[in-house]
């Protein structure tokens, strides 16, 4: 039988969604290893042993300066080449919440013409508050995103104080938006609290042009089992939570690497 797909769950000081993210990958048949960023920098482990790299949620380095900034700085200055090779080898990168913030501030997502430019950023919520609530997401059917294939409307929790997507003029047109905040009918113009942070165009998740690098603010790993749904006691039983499909898509696709 084929060897398992291997996912590297990156840990840094302040990462705190690593265990449940690893659990989600195991549920869809992958092997998930928790690897400290120091182990990569000191070459104790290599990205090349993995098909998928995940930067999970948390408050890396306390989110000091701004959310994900110091980890982003580290990725950009200490791991740039390794990550570039990993991407060029056609492998997958997933960033969740703090991982989204780090990928963006490291200039890895969205891809941009010049090396150091950062065409998009993630700023403080319009509400000025950290908020934990469940929100609806409408997947963009035309997106090349590997992770959201076959997904229509999703219901997932967000939990962040800095989740507002802000873009430079002109970037919006060429941006690969994979997920929009929406209302229960899928209307992607719906505003607060449906759009929990004030993101431009209700952007909740984006990917690169190949669809292999994907990042989102909501937490798919927090809705794998039906009892994680906030209203499971008043709704019919279901086999999986909405987040399950994202991990399944990734692992199914990675089998082809």
């Amino acid at each position: 039988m084929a060897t398992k797909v291997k996912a590297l769950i990156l840990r840094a000081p302040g990462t705190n969604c690593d265990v449940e993210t690893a659990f989600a990958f195991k549920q869809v048949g992958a092997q998930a290893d928790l690897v400290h960023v120091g182990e990569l920098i000191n070459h104790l482990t290599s990205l090349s042993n993995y098909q998928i790299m995940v930067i999970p949620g948390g408050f890396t380095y306390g989110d000091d300066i701004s959310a994900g900034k110091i980890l982003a700085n580290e990725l950009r200055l200490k791991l740039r080449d390794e990550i570039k090779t990993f991407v060029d080898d056609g492998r997958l990168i997933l960033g969740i919440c703090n991982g989204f913030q780090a990928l963006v501030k490291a200039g890895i997502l969205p891809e941009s013409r010049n090396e150091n430019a950062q065409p998009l950023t993630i700023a403080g919520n319009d509400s000025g508050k950290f908020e934990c609530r469940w929100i609806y997401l409408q997947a963009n059917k035309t997106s090349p995103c590997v992770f959201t294939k076959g997904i229509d409307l999703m219901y997932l929790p967000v939990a962040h104080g800095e989740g507002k997507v802000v873009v430079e003029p002109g970037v919006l047109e060429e941006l690969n938006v994979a997920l929009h905040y929406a209302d229960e009918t899928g209307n992607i113009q719906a505003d607060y609290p449906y759009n929990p942070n004030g993101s431009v165009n209700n952007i909740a998740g984006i990917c690169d042009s190949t669809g292999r690098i994907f990042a989102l603010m909501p937490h798919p790993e927090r809705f794998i089992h039906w009892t994680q749904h906030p209203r499971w006691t008043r709704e019919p039983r279901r086999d999986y939570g909405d987040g399950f499909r994202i991990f399944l898509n990734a692992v199914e696709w990675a089998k082809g690497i």
Partner: protein
Amino acid sequence: MFRIEVSVRAGLPDPRGNSLETDIRDIGIMNVTRARVSDVYFLEGDLNEGEAIRIGQELLADPLVEDFSCGEGLTARIEGSDAHVVEVAYNPGVTDPVEESIGKAIRDLGITTVRSIKTAHKYSLWGDLSEENLQSICDKLLVNSVIQHVVTKREEIILPSTTYKFVLTTVDLLNLDDGGLMEVSKDRLWLNLKEMRHIRDYFTKLGRNPTDVELETLAQTWSEHCIHKTFKSKIKLGQLTVDNLLKSTVMRVTEELKKPWCLSVFRDNAGVIDFDGSYAVCFKVETHNHPSAVEPYGGAATGIGGVIRDILGTGLGAKPILDTDVFCFAPPDFPDDKLPHGVLHPRRIFKGVRAGVADYGNRLGIPTLNGAVLFDNRYLGNPLVFCGTVGLLPASMSQRGEQQTGDLVVLAGGKTGRDGIHGVTFASGELTKESEAVSASSVQIGDPITEKKLIDVLLKARDRQLYRRITDCGGGGLSSAVGEMAEETGVRVYLERVPLKYLGLSYTEIWISESQERMVLAVPPDAVDQLIFLFESEGVEVTVIGEFTDTRRLELLYEGNLVGDLDMEFLHKGLPQRENEAVWELPQHAEPDFPPPIDLREDLMHILASWNVCSKEWVIRQYDHEVQGGSVLKPLTGVNNDGPSDAAIVRPILDSDMGIVVANGINPKYGDIDPYWMAASAIDEALRQIVAVGGNLQRVALLDNFCWGNPDKPDRLGGLVRAAQACYDIALGYETPFISGKDSLYNEFETEKGSISIPPTLLISAMAVMNNIEHAVTMDCKREDDLVYIIGTTLNELGGSQYYGVHGYVGNRVPKVDSKKGKKLMDTLGTVMENGLVKACHDLSEGGLGVAAAEMAFAGGLGMVIHLGQVPLGESINRDDYLLFSESNTRFLVEIAPKDRQQFENMMAGVDFAAIGKVTDKGRLEVYGINGAIVLSAPVNELKEAWQRPLRW
């Protein structure tokens, strides 16, 4: 030195500025037109301007939404000359953890010339503001003088003194009379005369004076906070003499019940019970009241940080999996002009405490799933902040470890500074208006990421069995942690080895410092290299500071000098037992004599909108209650995720169906009538919440947290004894053992008009093991035409009730508890719910039947009809308002599908219950009185709005 200032780019939304604007209006200053908050960084070192600019560009400022200015003189460009500018920096000695991570990031940039970093905030305010306006904005919102100050033009960074020259300091006790002894104790040791004499006589026998560090060690080890001498004292209450209140009440329940699943009780940092045979769960609730009164954000943050370390320091170390927080404040609308001098406004304390707990808990990735917020004017000078944490650990590691002679004393985690010096002794004395001044050093800024790193690496070290024993370094610092660990063996500590945040600490400061995020380990010599390698690989500080001996002595050395030498026997067993007088008499409150209202709608609205009952969604949403993925029953529930859950359920092992239920019971109002029934009600409430969500009483562990006034005052102590006696009687009746507890006494505040004591407050926290989380039941109504039953007996018990409260009365008929009847009822209901017959269940507490019915209806987005005439009574009640709002204990409201009616009624046989109404789709709550006439009819959305409005901040 370079000064880099970062601000939101002009024209872009500025949430921080906006919320400051709102806060300024909240304190009554309306003519502010705009506010902006900027971050300021002072970089000291040999860096050049190019490097400074690169740091600003690549690191400190966001390229899309922020601008930065470097050097000086550029501030004008940012806000124009018309703004009032205030810059606020931390006081010398206060370390902002941000400085460390920024330092790391700067080194990542390849810039090695920055020696030190200081942070500050710059506030730019527009509008016609007088000097007086600015002053009160600074005092009430921007500056807490305990840790911060306003930066005057061109201030240099004041680094704390960096030199310390060793001098051995002794304190002359031998020749002191009683007056002299109390002078030494006053405001520093908080020991009474008997204790001071005892210490003097000990050193007289030794023929020498104590050193300062020996005296401080004794004061800390013998402090109320560490040794709970009031609870262990000999108390005379009338004819009765209680020898050791703790042993004879709370601990006695556990001894008599002898539950085999109690794995470790009252001996470790938290109580431990068996979970599923291979795993165990532990639970601890701490208070951090005094520091939170002085500096709400820092005080509360270090409170949650401390209880999490208790969990990490239980057995061989547990993983924190759930937080619960209970706060008691004065009402947010307390009039400013009535605020005593030296007291922060309750609104500011509330906001600061909430933020402190959330920022710490969220960063550590621990879900905050349960809690409560209560309000009473008497918490004005003494807010209460209860922080609780549940932990998971392998059952095989549930026992406290024991070091062996020769094991090394290892200090892990944060560096040591002057933080929190005298925090413990401070917590054992009354607050005065000078507290802000004297206690300045006892507050610090928490560093959650250092603690998170510590948790991650310690659990790895635990699983590799690299240490034999672990404990947290909390109140009392090394003095308590190492001193307690070494009680049975002896220890030698080399104080100069302790890593410091900054130079200049004396050996005594090092020993008693309460710097956070530190743990102490006993490590076998052959494991220490592996341990150090592991910690360094994750960037966590770890240092060998001494070794355990077999001398049964505490030996402290500094640079080769013996600075302390105490024998463990005296340190730990030498404290003379206190003897206290207590009195207690039942107070007589006025009995209400107002006529029954014809329409009860307004009363229900008032109760729903009262601070204690109203929705706490504003608080809850700012906590992460989903992280770790185990949340099964969340704090908010129902069709719109905004109804009030009775308790929390978490699934600690994601591929197991077993769960843990966490609940809390607290109602200080009843204590104004009788602390005995307050305690009984608190236990009953915590247990009913567990049953209400589908749990049962088979494996429930309780924690007690007593927060009281000054126990040296006989009337306060009398109430404490009553409450403790109820803990014994009621917990025994329900067969639910206590596994751990804590007390915080001396919660009194001296004012010009005398001393204000908090209301006697007992928090009962309960944890239950649930065999199958899929049996969970929520409180929201599910479907129209379902039947509504009330379970339990209603009596004329409105003493201390919300209903009497809104009418300005306390009354005397306090709710009582019959634990024998109560246990039978809860066991029966528990079985019925396990059989899946109950679609919704809500316990009756503050506001009684009226509030429970309203909450169930609006949480489900449905309506309800209730007939008061059907309610089973324990005595005759002829008033509809009393029936609707009685707060009798051990009562539930449940929703049953019509098809299950017969089976439900058969299974409930033997307990008081009755069908009193049904769920409707009319979106109204309708209540019919005893004589059949309608006494209340209101749209549920109006009731919900009344309930949500007060704390929608």
